[in-house]
């Protein structure tokens, strides 16, 4: 059944459903553009335009969350593909911002966690965020990233192993 606030060009997408995903989606958009608020907001707006126009058309083949995260991922990818210089600048800005964030908090653990996350290769970082932060399954995360489930699993396992090693000191584990 069509929702009362379904989009004209995207009958399976409702404004209410998008609003419910908005916060999580913004987090994902932020991480796509080096934690720059303005760029992330722009990316979100662009994603909503894609949905409004029907250029990105949801056909219920996945969850709406997976689909919308995928739209943001693809937009970010196409936007930054030809802007390597800018991407490098954003990367450096992101690392600066992480340091600023760390300065604001005297929470030393955050620094260790961020360093662990930042040290991961991009794909592993992406799947880490999608699975651990956005509560997606590996299959959903793989769809968003545009990789096969097998590849997604490999990235996930490697990321988990790497994070477990780097974050082990934060979680004092019980001795056997």
């Amino acid at each position: 059944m069509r929702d009362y606030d379904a989009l004209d060009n995207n009958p399976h997408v409702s404004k209410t459903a998008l609003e419910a995903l908005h916060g999580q989606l913004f987090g994902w958009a932020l991480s796509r553009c080096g934690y720059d608020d303005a760029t992330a907001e722009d990316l979100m707006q662009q994603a909503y335009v894609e949905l409004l126009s029907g250029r990105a058309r949801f056909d219920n083949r996945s969850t709406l969350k997976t689909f919308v995260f995928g739209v943001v991922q693809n937009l970010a990818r196409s936007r930054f593909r030809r802007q390597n210089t800018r991407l490098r600048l954003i990367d450096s800005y992101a690392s600066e911002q992480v340091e600023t964030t760390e300065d604001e908090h005297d929470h030393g653990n955050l620094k260790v966690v961020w360093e662990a996350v930042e040290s991961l290769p991009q794909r592993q970082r992406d799947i880490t965020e999608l699975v651990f932060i956005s509560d997606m399954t590996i299959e959903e995360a793989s769809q968003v990233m545009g990789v096969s489930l097998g590849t997604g699993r490999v990235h996930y396992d490697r990321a988990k192993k790497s994070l477990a090693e780097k974050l082990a000191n934060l979680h004092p584990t019980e001795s056997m």
Partner: protein
Amino acid sequence: MEDEMNEEDIQESLSPAFEDAHTGNTPAFDKVWANAEAAYSRSQRRYRVVGSVAAAIAVVGIVAVLWPAQQEEFSDDFFIADALMNSTSWSAPSDSLMPEHQFDIYQEIPFPGVSTDRKEGSLL
């Protein structure tokens, strides 16, 4: 021997870090949505304007291409008809092939064996 961190431990460690990076700056949905709708209607309007201009240019182009040909065709017909209508004499194109005689050979040169005597203005 130490146990490896499990998924819950990793999630527990990562969540505060990501939340910290995402804090407090999420723009209101209504604002982003309104901007998206405005951008969409702007692009629609732009498409309509560009479409109309392209259609107008196409029409002008087609007319510009077809009009002179039609005009030329019309003027040829007009001038040919006009010339014919205005002419007081007409000569066949083959007339130039005929020798220009200064006398009427039928009137002036008698057939052999035919009398050249005239009676009442006619040859006998």
